[in-house]
């Protein structure tokens, strides 16, 4: 709806190729960054969960964020999207500062995230989950709610768009079931479809593939690639190296809260520091993060 999200959706097919000129060092500047963060720190008591000196995410690319469990990936997501406050540091989305913005305002700017632990709205139907995500609904105002004739047209249009997305994510047959009856993998799909329903400029996915069966993983990957091709920037957390190397344009490696390396998949594969800190020593099982965070 908003002009900035339209701008964000402008097809920029060759933008991820432009990363070719970027040198693979931590904190490298990108030609057209959609998200920028500097000096971001977040600590819990004595533990510094995130300490990122500088990070830029190139517009229109798929960027993977990897790192061992507890590296601070989810915490970084939280502070960037306004779900947690950074102790110090600045971040900007599409050139505008995100300072002090709460979660919903960040989302309205077009930076939409999903959660590591799936948050399907269980007692709402799949369709309601989708419709909830649509932007700028008149009927969502308390007074407007009493005048159905005003918002009925809008609702029908949203429903059509939701239907198309559900179709794409193979959830259309479940549209009237409550989301609580979906399988874990289907919930992940629904959460992603719902995020797309809100027309993001950039989408941040926290372990979208964890717990999803391999067949669905394949289709999820296709969705992510096609999102990029539509001009949406994607930042995602993942543990499965094959997946990461397969679809990422750029990879950022986090360890103990710091960016220890970034670069194209080939750069990362051969980076000795990464192998020492991560790949060589403790290769995480996909989904292993879930148990640790169940709380």
């Amino acid at each position, binding site marked *: 709806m908003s002009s900035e999200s339209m701008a964000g959706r402008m097809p920029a097919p060759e933008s991820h190729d432009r990363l070719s000129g970027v040198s693979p060092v931590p904190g490298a500047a990108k030609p057209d960054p959609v998200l920028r963060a500097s000096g971001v720190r977040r600590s*819990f*008591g004595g533990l510094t969960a995130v300490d990122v000196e500088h990070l830029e995410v190139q517009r229109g690319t798929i960027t993977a964020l990897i790192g061992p469990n507890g590296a601070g990936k*989810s915490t970084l*997501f*939280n502070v960037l999207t306004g*779900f*947690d406050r950074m102790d110090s540091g600045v971040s900007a989305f599409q050139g505008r500062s995100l300072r002090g913005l709460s979660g919903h305002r960040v989302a309205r700017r077009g930076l939409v995230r999903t*959660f*590591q*632990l799936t948050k399907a709205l269980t007692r709402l139907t799949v369709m309601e989950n989708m419709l909830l995500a649509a932007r700028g609904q008149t009927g969502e105002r308390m007074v407007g709610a009493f005048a159905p004739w005003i918002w009925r047209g809008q609702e029908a249009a949203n429903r059509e768009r939701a239907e198309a997305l559900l179709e794409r994510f193979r959830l259309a047959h479940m549209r009237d079931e409550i989301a609580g009856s979906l399988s874990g993998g289907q919930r992940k799909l629904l959460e992603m479809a719902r995020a797309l329903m809100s027309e993001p400029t950039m989408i941040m996915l*926290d372990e979208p593939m964890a717990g999803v069966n391999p067949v669905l993983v394949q289709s999820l990957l296709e969705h992510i690639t096609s999102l990029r091709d539509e001009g949406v920037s994607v930042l995602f957390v993942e543990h499965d190296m094959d997946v990461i190397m397969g679809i990422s344009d750029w990879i950022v490696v986090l360890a103990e809260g710091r960016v220890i390396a970034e670069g194209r998949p080939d750069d990362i594969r051969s980076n000795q520091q990464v192998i020492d800190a991560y790949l060589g020593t403790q290769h995480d099982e996909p989904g292993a993060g879930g*148990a640790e*965070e*169940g*709380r």
Partner: protein
Amino acid sequence: MRKGARVRRRLVTVLLAVIAAILVIPAYAAADDQGGETLSGQIRDPETVEGIEITVSRDGDEIGTATTDSDGEWEVELPEPGTYHVVLDQESVPDEYVVAETPGAEFDEVEVRPGQDRAVIFRLALPGEEEEEESEPSPTEEGAEPGADGGPPEEAEEEAPAAPEVERGASFSTRLLQTTLSGITFGMIIAISSVGLSLIFGTTRMINFAHGDMVTFGAMMALMFSTGMVFTAVPLVVAAVLAVVLGALLGGGMERFIWRPLRHRNVALIQMFIVSIGLALVLRHLLLAYFGGTRVRYDEFQLQSMLTLGPLQITPRDASIAALSVLVLVAVAAMLQFTRIGKAMRAVADNRDLAESSGINVDRVTLYVWTLGGALCALGGVFYGLNQTVYWQMGFHLLLLMFAGVILGGLGTAYGAMVGGLVIGLVAMLSTLWFPVELQNAWALAIMIVVLLVRPQGILGRRERVG
């Protein structure tokens, strides 16, 4: 191993049955008499009225009469405990009033227990009003005041803990010291009672709304044993120990036979809150039904001469309560800090899943937490009853302060509950230096809300994580 468990279960069942049996044995067996029974009251509805005559008789013999003073108060001394007949002389009522239809001008059987100051409430009404009140559907009154019916009239009165007794004339610094001392005592009583509340929350994520009534339970059990309502009277110290044991059994029993099964059935937390509210109602009103709605004091340790410590005065009773409270809190803290089970309790309270995955038997630890909580509640109840009076709503009124203490300290942390309880007790008492006594609980609760504004996770609490 299995056999041991079965024996233990049978033991618990038997003991619970004993508790139930004790509860069911009604009435107060005659206890030896400390003298000083009175009947008294205040006529103040709709306003205080002077010069109304009240006559007390028994079996047709007049025992005494009294006339209300300028505050509407009257009092008749009684020769001994027993059942009396109390009548308000309608002739003495000024013309602009009539005697309210309920409770009327006559009380047929007013039971007075040994040493009791029994209050009898008469009400006046304006002649016009009387009709309307009568035409209300019968459940109206009960419905409108679910907490305030079903017992003797005085229970509707507010039950805030009494303010410290300091002579008005004393200098401010003396009053400050004196009040601080009462505040610390009161705070430690809150702390003792609420350690369990906080640990229970930590281990099960559940707010136990029945916690206050577990306090009342302890106080009432001690009362029952010490006055010889059942069996023979035992010294209060022994009665207190018995009460603590029963409190522990009550806590452990609730966990074992109610909460654990519910948890294993995956009942949602909110439903659990409601169940605890239900249990609180059951416990509170059973205690009311069997012990009556009057305020009573323990027979022992009542009339004591003040100890003087510099500018401070304290009864040996309150001094012992304070000293014992410190001991108990230190002992509990030491237990939590140094023993295996104590460490396990804190671990489970901190993160149930993590504790479980590192091999702690979470169910067992939870059972111990409830048992400990129940015992501490009972002890807190005895102390509170000694410090103030024993009555059926004492725990419920303490519950809000315990909540405030636990929230102040940070839900789920044992030490937080101790610190928070102490702060709340101090705030409640100190507020009386500047503000009306009746608002002392309001101040304590207000402090809690202010702290939540500044530090939502409480003083010692930790923030929840997102995502």
